């Protein structure tokens, strides 16, 4: 019982920190690459997106604890982070052509 409580806490905390980080990383990469693809200056895009990314991190961090299903949290955060990172990478290749 205690062990399962502890593992739940570890699960939530790692989702809250690592999962949120992965998601925020993907958001930042895709946001910057997307804005640059739309013609925005690189540093403009970087500055603006990173300011937003900090708030995104805060939001998903809180959500990771509040959400009912830990599996769904991991799916959204890690899955979403990986998808957005991949999309950013593909977009960069397309832009640099």
């Amino acid at each position, binding site marked *: 019982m205690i062990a399962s409580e502890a593992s739940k806490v570890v699960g939530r905390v790692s989702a809250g920190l690592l999962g949120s980080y992965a998601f925020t990383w993907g958001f930042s990469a895709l946001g910057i*690459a997307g804005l640059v693809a739309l013609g925005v*200056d690189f540093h403009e895009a*970087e500055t*603006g997106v990173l*300011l937003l990314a900090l708030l995104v991190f805060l939001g998903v*961090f809180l959500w990771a604890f509040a959400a009912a299903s830990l599996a769904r949290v991991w799916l959204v955060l890690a899955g979403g982070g990986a998808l957005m990172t991949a999309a950013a990478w593909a977009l*960069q290749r397309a832009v640099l052509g």
Partner: protein
Amino acid sequence: MFSSFRLCMSWLHTWFGLVLGFVLMVAFFFGSLSVFDREIDRWAMPQTRFAPQPMPSFDRMLLPILKQVQPDEQDYAANMAALHDAAKGPMTPRLELPVEEYWAYTTHRDPVLIMGVGFGVPQPKDPAAHNHIHGSVTIDPRSGELLRDDQLKIGTGFFYPMHYSLHLTWRDLGIWIVGLAALTMLAALVSGVIIHRRIWREFFTFRPWKRTQRSALDLHNLTGVVALPFHFFFSFTGLAIFAGHFYLPVASTLLKPMHERHEVLEAQRTGLPHERAGVAAPLASVDAMVLEAKRRWAARDMAGEVGFLQIHHVGDANGYVSIYRAGSDRVALVGEGIHFKASTGALLREDPPRTVVSQINEFLTGLHLQHFEHWLLRWLYVLGGLLGCVCIATGFIFFVEKRKKQHAAAGSQGSRVVDALAVTTVTGMVIAAVAMLVANRLLPAELAGKGDWEQAAFWGAWVLALLHAAWRSAPVARSRINPAWREQCWAIAGLAVAAVLLNWVTTGDHLIGTVFTDTYWPVAGLDLSLLASAALALVAARRLAWRERCAEAVGAQTQAPADAADDRLPVTARLTHHG
């Protein structure tokens, strides 16, 4: 895991707040001190107690000194092997590294001038990276005399880096820990608001006569709510300052190709060369370029001093000089850059007005770093930072008070350990900082490696405070007060008064002089702050002594349930105390 949203937020607030609270306390306290980092430098380096100076002549004073600067031994030892590509040949010896760039930086609060050289790495692993080994010096701009480099600038060189890096430089670990703490602060503010809901009432609720648990919570809520925008803003902008370089380095990793292309296009667009030409060229008069830059600022109706000066690609035909205006009169740091061709002094480019996004960013980060001239606001920053400290410290006390009876009954040591750590991070941290100032005045000025000894005094005093807090912590396990709180308050008072007296004895600067006859606020301000801290520590020590006596009286007097006694006692004790 949690039965309700509020319970979940409460768990998050309690446990993240507790674990990262110790780090937050350091960030808030040393952040508050860093508001006056340069003034603390003046106190700790008596030979630099003179008025701030404008940037001196580059051609006559700075250039001859810059030519003598050598690559820093520690920087070379730590980074050269990682930057150099061993496949291309042997590593260039330290003293043979080519000069790549020169820089000099000053603000309206700097009597001394810092400047330095970026040395290139001839055979780098990654030619696109920032391949520099650095060397820097501090000079007295009135004479050009060098300041000894084993002399520690306690404000800018120790308290300020403590604020954002904890001096844990290995893989920037400290910066990451402080970043996590800042995120925790944001989450704690949001979750704190959700837990309490009655925000408006918290503004006016402080009941010091209630038992400690209740009054600690009142003060925790009050300081959290009153300064909520301040706490949120500083945690957020602190993260924003480091986001691009440390926390989310997307531009230098995943999107590096995109970033590189931008840099090359940018260099073409602005006419400021990205690379060296490989052709040697002389350096024209930089003083003439400074005059021209000042003339152009004045023509734009923003006359000002030079804040930052940088020469890129030194000695090369592609070299250029960038001159930035000091940010004394606005929030953003330095700006309005004007760039000249180094070999001829011809104007290359005048930076256009900022875009909206970078204006917002510069406003946010500039408001955090506060290099502008506004003394009232600086003091409000100190007040806000200290309110943050009170908020975190009362959080610790509430945590302990809420649990210590239960823990005492169950024989658990949990609240005892937390309380001892709280003593260490609240009073112990102040002791460490003041002990460092005392050591600074006690150690002879000519002592070799004086700065290292001062740092040893800081860490030594802090470790002693930890040991003392742990040694005296047994009463907490019996639901009493740890006497270390009171004893360390006495230590703060004694050390703070000693620091002021030692400053007088060793430099002759006493408060009557620094305030009235020969006014020098940087030193007077720190002396007065030390005395105010001593007075506050004395009041705290006396009140703690009274609380301890009350708790003992109850223990001896009645066998009544501790809870009821605790509720009744402070009221009666208050009457006798004030009567």
